[in-house]
């Protein structure tokens, strides 16, 4: 029964992936991509990786989907404005198919051999994590790895997110600065629904964050839920980015700031970088994770809200500045 389910799941994954590539209509491709993300989340569940499944569903399918739909809307707005561009899209050059086909077959054979002839690992990290988890300050092994054993990786990953949002802010046309933005459309149903749903969304986000210390969950998943709530608010016409603009920078960087401050201040006691003092690991990890949740939520939301509005003219500013 499980095998049959896995086979169907695998085939569905392949088919949606093919659908993304073969679809002529961009919007259709994006919808296929979201379906692909949801199926992939199911695959992670089948592989006993519920943390990844949560992240994939929230970020891979959810927020990436929102960003892509937004991008498609921009593209079609521009296309409608300019008939010449329409032609450009239709006559996109046909690339030869043999290169991707050969690469895929080659990669398939390579991976098949690599898995078939894989030696038995002599080191078992899961065992070592289990042996040391009592010292880590949390009960959930994934959180222990992300926030304690390999916290340095996580610190740099937060920096990656921060850089992404800095780049998005830098690309926002300089002249615009919130003056010419049209007020968001007011939709009473969406407005009312969001107002009533918001407490539940925030509660779920906080629960997922809290749960991370003893079961699947944590800052990334909680942050993604927070970001989704903010996107809802923005879409419902609450103009979150305007209220938050002054505090936005601090909010974006807060998680990283707290993480780095903790990492450095422990060195004053003569401990190595990122070593939590004995007995305080649990509290410090939760504190860092709470700040990270806030920042990750704001960062993911900003990637959405930094997009120029759909007026079309702003999107073309680059052309005017061209020399």
């Amino acid at each position, binding site marked *: 029964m499980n095998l049959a389910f896995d086979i169907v799941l695998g085939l569905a994954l392949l088919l949606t992936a093919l659908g993304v590539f073969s679809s002529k209509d961009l919007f259709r491709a994006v919808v296929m991509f979201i379906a692909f993300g949801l199926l992939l989340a199911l695959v992670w569940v089948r592989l006993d990786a519920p943390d990844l499944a949560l992240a994939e569903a929230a970020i891979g399918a959810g927020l990436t989907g929102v960003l892509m739909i937004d991008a498609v809307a921009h593209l079609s707005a521009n296309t409608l404005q300019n008939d010449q561009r329409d032609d450009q899209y239709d006559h996109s050059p046909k690339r030869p198919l043999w290169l991707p086909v050969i690469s895929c077959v080659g990669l398939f054979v390579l991976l098949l051999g690599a898995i078939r002839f894989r030696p038995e690992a002599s080191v078992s990290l899961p065992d070592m994590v289990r042996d040391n988890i009592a010292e880590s300050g949390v009960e959930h092994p994934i959180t222990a790895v992300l926030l304690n054993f390999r916290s*340095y990786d996580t610190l740099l990953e937060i920096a990656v997110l921060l*850089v992404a949002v800095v780049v998005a802010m830098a690309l926002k046309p300089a002249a615009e600065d919130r003056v010419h933005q049209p007020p968001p459309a007011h939709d009473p149903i969406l407005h009312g629904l969001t107002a009533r749903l918001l407490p539940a969304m925030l509660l779920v986000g906080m629960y997922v964050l809290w749960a991370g210390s003893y079961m699947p969950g944590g800052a990334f998943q909680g942050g993604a839920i927070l970001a989704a709530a903010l996107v809802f608010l923005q879409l419902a016409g609450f103009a979150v980015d305007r209220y938050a603009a002054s505090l936005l920078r601090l909010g974006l960087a807060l998680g990283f700031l707290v993480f780095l401050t903790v990492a450095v201040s422990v060195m004053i006691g003569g401990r190595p970088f990122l070593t939590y003092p004995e007995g305080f690991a649990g509290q410090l990890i939760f504190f860092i994770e709470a700040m990270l949740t806030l920042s990750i939520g704001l960062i993911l939301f900003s990637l959405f809200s930094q997009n120029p509005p759909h007026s079309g003219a702003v999107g073309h500013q680059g052309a005017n500045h061209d020399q």
Partner: protein
Amino acid sequence: MNLIPLLLVIPLAWALISLLLPRLPLGPIAVLGMLVQLIASALLWRSVQLDGAARYAIGDWMAPLGITLVADGLTVTLLAMTALIAIICAVYALFYLRAHPHEKRYFWPLFWFLLAALNGIWLAGDLFNLYVGLELVTLAAVGMVTLSGKRNALAAGLRYLYAALLGSLGYLLGVALLYSAYGTLDMQQLSQLMENNWTTQAALLLMTLGLLVKTAIFPLHAWLPPAHGGALAPVSALLSALVVKSSFYILARLWLDAGSGLLPVAGAQLLGVLGASAIFYGGFKALQQKEIKMLVAYSTVAQLGYLMLVFPLATGTSPAAAMLAWQGGMLHLVAHAFAKAAMFLSVGTLVLAVGSKQISALAGISTRIPLSLFAFGLAGVSLMGLPPSGGFNAKWLMLQSAMTSGQWHWVIVLSLGSLLTATYIFKVFRVSFDQQAIDQGKGVVARAHWGLEVSALLLAAIAIGLGFAAALPIELLSLPQLENGALEGVSP
């Protein structure tokens, strides 16, 4: 306080300051921060020189559970190089960005994140940590390319992003395979555990392909010239001098340090052939360019090719030849970094002065803006490999290695490559010394700030100076596996 984590904390802290307090004079603050960084790098360099390599367990968790940082001879050389180039680029940017207020706002946070990521890569002893470092480098670099927001900058940046992400995926897939086969991500442990089997070779092949894309080795180089040629001058300098070196560094560590003995001789020769093709293709394309910055960008494509010659020269050859190849290759990396940074900065000044990117616009400027042209020339001397310069010493070591191991075909490649480099460098000089144009009083539109000219000249002088002081870094650049004993030495 241990210096190793300090080299990560300084750039990360300054990145936060630049991001959160945009109203401060970020340029001077950055130069100050770079000074601290330079001193810390120099102190670490000295301590490794005296006490040998050091390892540092982050979070007090030993590998394989935790992440270990390693500071050996190569690492500290690259750290010092990065700090030195970055501080001069920061001084240059201080003056250069006055004309670019919009770009200035976001240049400094990205600059500091880029430096943190580079330092992180030089120090990393863990394969997955290297992946995170690569991602941070890539995103910061792409951001810097697109800073101006102009259409061609966006197109170049997007192309760069796609290529780099593809490279990252290849690398990550290889890391996952190695982890599943050996259960650890620590490079030192992997070097003892890795066996020559399908899984290892498949993993290393995938990682190599990914890193070749990121290093822009022919024929995977197409993203580099528009990205490096189209960016702001200080950004181009940082990208060509430092960013592309980070992925090559991982490649070299992978095959010659962690996986020494695993690279088949045929594979090493193939990597060499790619390098040779890069040298000739990049050289010819550089010769054909009409825009000066594109000429310098294609020169980077060619010069990166020399780095790939390390693999055939150090694989399946005698220890003496391998050592010469390793030292020559790494010295080339350092010398090219200084020379290319100098070249992009001086070219940036020239473009500002004549108000055009065309090479033809440089006609007759030799008498008008001699300092920048001199810096360009000095950098060119090192790129061509003429004595005395760091480039000459590097090529000389590689030539010696090729002759010791009897690989005469690489001797030919090395010599012809230098000739080709000379051709495109002199192309610029022929135009700028055009007597007719000088007589007509052509040239210079705007006066260049002396700070711009001096910083480029300083970098070029260091590239030349490496020819006299090459013994200093070479002493530290011995093949890592030969000093594995020393690696165990100092721990925190």
